[in-house]
Structures are given as structure tokens and as C-alpha cells.
């Protein structure tokens, strides 16, 4: 499934970030790609709900990120991760502006909508899960409000810290905590509606 992460010889995300910031090191960026591609893809995937679109957008995100670094704009950022997530968010917005897709699936329309996420499981996923709870989560997540879904993915799937999330979405730590709490409550409510035998 997830390939083992390769980090630089000097190790660590901070070392990669410094190599990029100081030397615009191309090799460091490729290492950063290896390090972050899966979580960036996941973040995009849970937002757009389509694997192919998520892949396209993820490609764009990394290329944009490199251009940003190449132009020497990395000074405002403390971590490469926060830059990647910010670019991903903006790219998704641009993508939907251009394609005029709907980014959100409002809670009110749950009954009429089919799951937005591409639910086709790959063989590895099928082998890894004993029962279909993952599928339930994948189906329920798109039904959350966009901002709740975003913090859930960032916090519990991609495991970003509160501070990192606040820098990505541009809110205070306190606001982020409140949002996470409410997001979990909403998700719990949605999961309760799932068939009893699965939950």
C-alpha cells in the first residue's frame, strides 16, 4: 500500500525545507515529493471525491510548489508541508472555478446525492480491511460540511498538528480546536445512521 517514505541523508522535514529554502535544491524537492505525495493526494481526494481528479490536482500542486520555491517565495513559510497544503487548497478552488464543478455536497442534499468519493477500492485496500467500515467512512465524509471534512482529514487522517492546521486554513488554534470538535460530532451523527452491523 503506502510505500515507505524516503527522507534525505541529513534526515527530517526541516532539513529538506532548509535545503529548498537556501539552495532551491531540486533533489530535495523530489525527496519532499516522496515524503508528502500520499498525504497531499489524500487531502485532495477527500475534497474532490474522485481519484483521477485528485491525481491531476496533486501533480499541479507539486509543480506549483516548485515554481513558488524557485521564485524565492519560501520565506513566509515555516514548513514545506503548510505550503503544500495551502497550494493544494487554492488549486482545488481554481480547479472548480474552471470546471464549474461543485466542491461541496451540502448536508441538506444527502438523501439525493450519491457518494461523491470514488468508492472503487483497490485490491490492497480490500485485503487490508476486515470489514467495510472504511467504506462507510469514505461515504460519510463527503457528507460533512466542507470545512469540517477538511479539518477531519488534516487532523485524523494526515495527522497534522493543531498549529499546522491553523496555518493551513488561516484560523487561530482555538478556532481549529472548536472546528475539530464540531466536525467529530457531525461525523458521529452521520455514522450512527449507517447499518448497525457495520458500525
Amino acid at each position, binding site marked *: 500500500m503506502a510505500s515507505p517514505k524516503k527522507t534525505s541523508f541529513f534526515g527530517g522535514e526541516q532539513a529538506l525545507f532548509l535545503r529548498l529554502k537556501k539552495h532551491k535544491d531540486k533533489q530535495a524537492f523530489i525527496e519532499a515529493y516522496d515524503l508528502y505525495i*500520499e498525504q497531499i493526494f489524500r487531502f485532495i481526494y477527500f475534497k474532490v471525491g474522485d481519484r483521477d481528479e485528485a491525481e491531476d490536482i496533486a501533480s499541479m500542486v*507539486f509543480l506549483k510548489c516548485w515554481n513558488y520555491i524557485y521564485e524565492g517565495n519560501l520565506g513566509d513559510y515555516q514548513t514545506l508541508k503548510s505550503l503544500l497544503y495551502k497550494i493544494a487548497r487554492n488549486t482545488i478552488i481554481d480547479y472548480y472555478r474552471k470546471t464549474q464543478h461543485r466542491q461541496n455536497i451540502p448536508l441538506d442534499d444527502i438523501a439525493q446525492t450519491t457518494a461523491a468519493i470514488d468508492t472503487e477500492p483497490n485490491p*490492497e485496500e480490500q485485503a487490508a480491511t476486515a470489514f467495510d467500515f472504511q467504506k462507510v467512512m469514505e461515504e460519510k465524509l463527503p457528507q460533512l460540511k466542507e470545512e469540517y471534512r477538511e479539518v477531519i482529514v488534516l487532523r*485524523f487522517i494526515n495527522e497534522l498538528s493543531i498549529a499546522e492546521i491553523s496555518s493551513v486554513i488561516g484560523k487561530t488554534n482555538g478556532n481549529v480546536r472548536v472546528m475539530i470538535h464540531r466536525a467529530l460530532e457531525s461525523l*458521529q451523527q452521520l455514522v*450512527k445512521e449507517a447499518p448497525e452491523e457495520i458500525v
Partner: protein
Amino acid sequence: MNEKNLVRHLSGLKSVAPRADWIRQNREVLSYQIFNGQESAAIKLGFFSRVGIVANRLLQPTPIAALIALFFMVSGVVGLNASKHTTDPANVLYAAKIIAERATVATTFDEKGKAKLAVEHAQNRANELNSFSQTSNPNDPRLQELTDNFKKEIASARERLSKLDEEAAKQAAIDAQTSVKPKLNLNSKASIKQKTDEVATTDEGVVSADSGKDEKGIQIFIPASKVLEEAEKLFNEKNYNEAASKLGEIEIK
């Protein structure tokens, strides 16, 4: 399901990942874009590419016009500089020199400046004849051409100098009348005449030649017209060098 379980199950969604072959392919594409992208376009430009870029910029209409103008300016300056040392009237550069001198006179609007130029050009002709006569056959028709040119320049210088003298005399008369006006009621007409003469005599030096000092140490000025006459006389005697030196004595203030 409590919150703890929910979080545990959510972390299970980490298994959602892009296809391994897509990761690899995209990595290759990204590497290609980074390593052969923007920077290489700047760094890997060869000599001919750089020449091409410069040529492309220079071939725009404005640089072309500027280059043409620059060419004419440079060739003009170089040509005039070369023609300064030409003494042969048959030489193309000599014609260019004469044209340049005429152009200088035409673009000078000050009478004193024109007079200075006329004297200077007459001096040039004398110098040219001096150097040309030393290398040419005495029967060379070009000697006559140079002589005619000198005479033309001398005539022009004389005309301009006499104009300046007239103007200076008029101005002196006006100044004299102004300066003696308060005394007009007290003195006779004779005193005015005397004063005017004094001023006119003093202003004779406006167009004059410095001929040194007399035995009492007083500066002596000779009217320029007289100097011209002397220079012409020396020229006619074929003392071209002295004629040129004489013309150099003329000082126009």
C-alpha cells in the same frame, strides 16, 4: 460509537493512497519538469542562442533606426576628423572639409562668431597652400584653386569685420551721447564731439590685432582690417606661412 473509536477508524483512512504506478510516473514527470524546466532554459543557452536573442532584440524597428543614426554620426565624425588634415583640393575629404566649414558658418548666428570663423577659415586656406605648395608642381592648377579659396575667405572675413567695426562705432557713439548727456546743458557741442571721438578710438580694439606694447609699456592695438591687408599682402608674396600667422594675430572680442 464513541469519539475514540471514530478517530481510530478515521486513521484507518490513511490507507487511501494514489496508485503506486501513478506516483512513480508523476515523480518522473516532475523530475523532468524541474531538472529541464525554467532554470535550464536560462542556464543552458548556448552561444548561438544568446546571439539569436540579442539579434532578435536589435532587429526591432527602434534599435534599427538608432543604429542607422549612430552609423551616420560616427562616420560623419570620423570623416570630418580625417578631412581636417587634407590639403589636396582634389581629394574628396577636402570637399567634405569645406562643406563642414560652411555648415559651421551657417549654423552660427552670432556676427562675431561668423567673423571669427571667416578669419579662421582664411588662415586654414593659407596653411593648406603652404603645405600643398611644398609638395606640388608650381604649375599645378590646384594651387590656383587654393589661392582663389583663400581670397574668397579673406573677402568674407573683411566684409564681416567691417560690419562689426561699423556696429561697434555706432554703439560707441550712442554710449558717448548717453555718458555726456548730463553735461549737455553745461558744455558745448564741441565737448560732445571730443567725447565721442575718445570712445570711438578706445573701441577700435573690438576688432583688432594685438601688436604688443610701445616703448612706454602701453598696449598697442592695430585695427583688424589693417591686419587682413597685411596678411593678404604676405599671401600674394607667397609667404603663406607668415600670412597664416598674421591672420592668427587677429583677436575679436
